[in-house]
């Protein structure tokens, strides 16, 4: 397993690096590698250099970090709910954050007070509590269908609220933009927000991974091994919430990333969350960087929403997971 782990890491890292390079080179205006190199290391203030520095680079980095964080959050959620389909967008956490972003963008006084990120954080906290409630109250006999229905109901609720807010604020078409997600507006500001929050949460998630391993064996086993399941769940949700909040603030609602990546990695590396969580981060980063490249280039010069690619990849995984459940 250890060798496989190294192998996965190297492959994913190469993929991610290649993706980052492609993301800076490709776009509505293709740039050569030479130009990219120059604009990073010999900045001359030309148009191409500005394009790379102010638009392409932050966008690529945002995509990488958001992809990593989302799949990491998915892996942690699957561990604490013991349910292979748990994922931030399916469980309604990103929708809660979306609602808060909608409120902030409609109401200028709220926006001035909090800004998008902080508002998203508040929304994610509220919906995270609901997830926590469900994962604690019925983790013993939580079937796939119950968790999924609960998540669907919660996300429907938040989306309905968001629609009302957008409608009353006369911003209803913007709602579609928040919901579809993407990196059109990525700037360095978002990168500087994502990196510290993300690395902090990732570090905490790594620290928790041993305990998540034990929780994923079942509550009774966990208690027998001296781990308090409720405590670990609260800590884990506390780690997930800021992750999801910064992701939604930066990129809107991107579904299924947290479902696909951990599922595939589990196949390769097994159930050990100490390996699963970091591997999820790096593979998720690679996936979303490439998805963003596709979003930029498939219908040039227009953007294809990135959620399309994540859903296209995610639905088959989802269906296969569901079909496996015993009736």
């Amino acid at each position, binding site marked *: 397993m250890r060798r496989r782990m190294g192998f996965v890491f190297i492959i994913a890292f190469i993929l991610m690096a290649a993706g980052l390079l492609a993301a800076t080179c490709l776009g509505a205006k293709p740039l050569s590698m030479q130009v990219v190199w120059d604009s990073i290391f010999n900045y001359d203030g030309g148009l191409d250099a500005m394009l790379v520095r102010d638009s392409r680079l932050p966008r690529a980095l945002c995509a990488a970090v958001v992809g990593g964080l989302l799949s990491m959050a998915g892996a942690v959620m699957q561990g604490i709910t013991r349910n292979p389909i748990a994922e931030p967008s399916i469980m309604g956490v990103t929708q809660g954050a979306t609602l808060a972003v909608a409120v902030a963008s409609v109401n200028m006084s709220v926006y001035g007070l909090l800004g998008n990120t902080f508002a998203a954080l508040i929304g994610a906290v509220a919906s995270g509590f609901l997830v926590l409630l469900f994962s604690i109250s019925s983790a013993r006999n939580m079937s796939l269908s119950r968790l999924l229905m609960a998540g669907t*109901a919660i996300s429907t609720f938040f989306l309905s609220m968001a629609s009302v807010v957008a409608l009353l604020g006369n911003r209803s078409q913007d709602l579609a933009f928040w919901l579809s997600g993407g990196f059109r507006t990525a700037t360095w500001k978002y990168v500087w927000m994502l990196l510290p929050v993300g690395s902090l949460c990732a570090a905490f998630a790594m620290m928790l991974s041993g305990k998540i391993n034990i929780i994923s064996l079942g509550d009774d086993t966990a208690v027998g091994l001296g781990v308090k399941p409720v405590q670990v769940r609260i800590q884990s949700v506390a780690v997930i919430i800021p992750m999801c909040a910064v992701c939604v603030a930066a990129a809107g609602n991107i579904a299924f990333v947290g479902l696909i990546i951990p599922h595939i990695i589990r196949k390769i590396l097994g159930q050990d969350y100490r390996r699963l969580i970091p591997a999820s981060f790096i593979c998720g980063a690679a996936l979303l960087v490439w998805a963003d490249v596709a979003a930029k280039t498939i219908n040039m010069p227009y953007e294809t929403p990135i959620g399309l690619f994540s859903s296209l990849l995610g639905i088959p995984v989802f269906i296969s997971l569901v079909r496996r459940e015993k009736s």
Partner: protein
Amino acid sequence: MKKRMTAVMPVGIVMLLAICLFALLYGSYEMSLGQIFKTIFYGGTPSEHVAVWGIRLPRILVSIFIGVALSASGCTMQGVTRNPLAEPGIIGINAGATLAVVLYIANQSTMYYSALGAGTLIFTPLISMLGAFAAAGLIYGLAYKKGDTGRNRLILVGVGINIAISSVVVLFQLSMNKGSYNQALTWTNGSLWGTGFLYLAMIAPVTVIIFAVLIYKSRTLDVLSLGDEIATGLGIAVEKERKKFLFLAVLLASAAVAVAGNIAFVGLIGPHIAQKLVGAVHRRKLPAAAVISACLVVLADTLARNLFSPVEIPLGILLSLIGVPYFIYLMIRER
């Protein structure tokens, strides 16, 4: 329970009438009770006529039928899947219908509101039915394994398909202009904005016929909801009957979506309250659920129309705001 039924039905119907009266009275154009009766029976001033005959009355009647159709659809789905949380809005049937209509709007020439021809009005429901059946077929096909669709698999696959279709709908909405977007919005969120008597003609016959068929076949539904083994033991071709009932349920849901757009949770709330009041026998549960849901939809539509007047909140959104807390309450309690 039989005795209860004789108590529940009259009370329910009286309540429905009272709510309808309230819906007639409450609106941005103020009218007294006397004026309303005068307008209904003798005809009033032109503006009174528009308010009552043009807006409020058709909306109330269509709301009633939507409530009946969706609750019967939900009731049937819960019976055949034996999952108390099954509902056409949650498992993606409504979303399929919505997607079809949104696609249609996106590819149409730009004609809005008053410019809509009668052809569009008749064509749209057909398209929505097509979408509903396509979604239902897809869900059924993906859930089908080794000769049956399982107890949960159908719903789980449905929820996934629902998410997928909704994201596709959002994609199309992004590329629309403002006018088409607003038109599509009434579908994706479920609204009775601009409902006329033509809509009533579209939903009423289908609903009445299928409802009668369901009542007629309610014994089979009762047996199916006991479980596959018992039903087989009692001589029922389970998967075949399940398919038939699902077909009827989808037809009902698509009729409702065709006039009102994507409305969720009605198929859940009505049947649940009905089951508590009159028990699980479908011959009693179906009518009781229909009356309760009709009350709910008429009330919700009246509020949607007036709560933030002059802005109208889509009916579907208001119903999810009511429905979700109830749904979650059910899930937590049912454990």
